[in-house]
């Protein structure tokens, strides 16, 4: 039998709006911590100004977005806190397609992340303006987009990890340990190839470093001269490539969430 009068399912717009609000609430504590750091940064800049009698300037540059882009990898863990694959019962029991629901929540987190990056650059701009620092005049326009695209890609990679594993922290930590271990052993015969592969993924022409730094002149790394020659097309290609990988992994994770 099928009941004549069924309860309606919620509209996707209502679900997305509620997810946006609830993710904002979930990230409130992390937001307060980030705000605290910015407040401390403001105090530190103020003290620098005071000590230098107003001569310490604070420039605005896109490289300042690098740490934020890397941190974006961790944001999904805050978005889904308390809701690992084994404890996602409530989310999955809602009258919404599971994959679409996971996508809605993750994209809400992405929207908050983008706002956080914008807020961070707003703070940097304010600090530069107040201290008379350079407002980034020597940078190409595309370099101001890099922090946002990099943060978005890193966020999606983090989301894929968080959706499919119960312990994303362990996977990230394990990955870092493996990376360092490979680096230590790189001089040993037989592991050089592995190191080269890892190095290509991270520091290669189209590697994560290109994605995150935009190959800007001030970026750290031992390939300084190579970076000096960077052009927008290289960054664009790296970004497209990493975005495609991140979106594919994210969608795969959203549609193949484990049953627990």
């Amino acid at each position, binding site marked *: 039998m*099928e009941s004549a009068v069924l309860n309606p*399912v919620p509209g996707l717009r209502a679900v997305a709006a509620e997810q946006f609000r609830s993710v904002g609430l979930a990230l409130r504590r992390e937001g307060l911590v980030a705000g605290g750091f910015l407040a401390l940064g403001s105090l530190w800049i103020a003290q620098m100004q005071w000590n230098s009698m107003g001569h310490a300037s604070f420039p605005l540059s896109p490289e300042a977005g690098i740490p934020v882009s890397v941190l974006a990898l961790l944001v999904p863990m805050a978005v*889904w806190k308390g809701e690992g694959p084994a404890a996602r019962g409530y989310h999955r029991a809602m009258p919404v397609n*599971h994959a679409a629901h996971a996508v809605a929540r993750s994209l809400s987190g992405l929207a908050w992340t983008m706002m956080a990056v914008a807020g961070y650059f707003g703070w940097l701009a304010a600090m530069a303006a107040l201290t008379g620092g350079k407002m980034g005049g020597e940078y190409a326009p595309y370099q101001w987009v890099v922090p946002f695209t990099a943060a978005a890609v890193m966020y999606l990679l983090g989301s894929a990890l968080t959706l499919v594993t119960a312990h994303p922290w362990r996977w990230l930590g394990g990955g870092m340990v493996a990376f360092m271990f490979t680096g230590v052993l790189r001089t040993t015969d037989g592991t050089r190839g592995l190191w080269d592969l890892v190095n290509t993924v991270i520091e290669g022409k189209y590697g994560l470093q290109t994605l995150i730094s935009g190959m800007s002149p001030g970026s750290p790394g031992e390939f300084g001269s190579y970076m000096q020659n960077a052009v927008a097309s290289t960054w664009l290609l790296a970004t497209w490539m990493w975005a495609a990988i991140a979106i594919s992994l994210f969608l795969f994770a959203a549609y193949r969430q484990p049953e627990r």
Partner: protein
Amino acid sequence: MTLPVRLGDGTFAIATHDLTKRFGRDTALRGVDLQVPEGAVYVLVGPNGAGKTTTLKLLLGLYAADGGSVRVLGMDPRARGPEVRAQVGYVPERGDWGYGYMSVGRLLEHHAAYFPRWDWPYAMSLAQRLDVGLDRKVGKLSKGMTRRVHLVLAMAHRPPLLLLDEPTDGLDPVMRDETLGLLAEHVADTGATVLISTHLVHEVDRLADHLGVMRDGRLTAQLPREVLHQNLRRYRAEVPAGWTGVPRLDANVVKRGGVGREIQWSVWGDEREVARTLAESGATLRDAAPLTLEDAAVVLLSRKD
């Protein structure tokens, strides 16, 4: 003896056929034919690990079956999961649903956004009767309070089907009584079908009108309460020295007990027929009484195949 495992023809809010679910090498459900009549309060009883929670998750479309079919209000939960879940009020077995950063009131708002027919006055009334504090953080609730919050979430959109997994677990006696009263009122008001999974049958005794017994992933019995009441009885009889039993009844004896010359058997079958058979064997019947739902569940669960 074969206990009834099918309710026959009728209008079922829930109907599964040959439902099978495996987790790796473990088989959690083996050919389950669950039939929950529309408007019934069906208690699914079984020990921990019997497959009750897995059954409920299959009904919600949270798991994919490895075999067989599922129909909930006429819909396949795998094909129409969101529509099925919109008709269901679900109380999960586990309380760790996340959202610990929300207040209870905010969680209710969150939930309401998913159910367009959410009834706020009813939700507030439920929260008041279950003594749910709206300002408390979800992550800091006790097990019993979490259960009460889940009950509010499950009922406030007046769903036609309630799936309650150990709904009284963690509730103190007063709150358990209040909860059962609320459920009874809810059923009376809405005509909802209720499927309660529990291993604490006595706590939901007064609500149940159907019983399903699950063991090792199989549904070993499924029947209306009145059929159970009529057919499963405890017989107390005195037997003569050297009494060798009643081979004809052996297949129908669900549980044997007794001390000395007094036997106490739980037997499935027509009371007059059983009494006559016992008398013919030389036993003197002292009394034959129906079992309480809990006793019946214990007897059926402890039955040796």
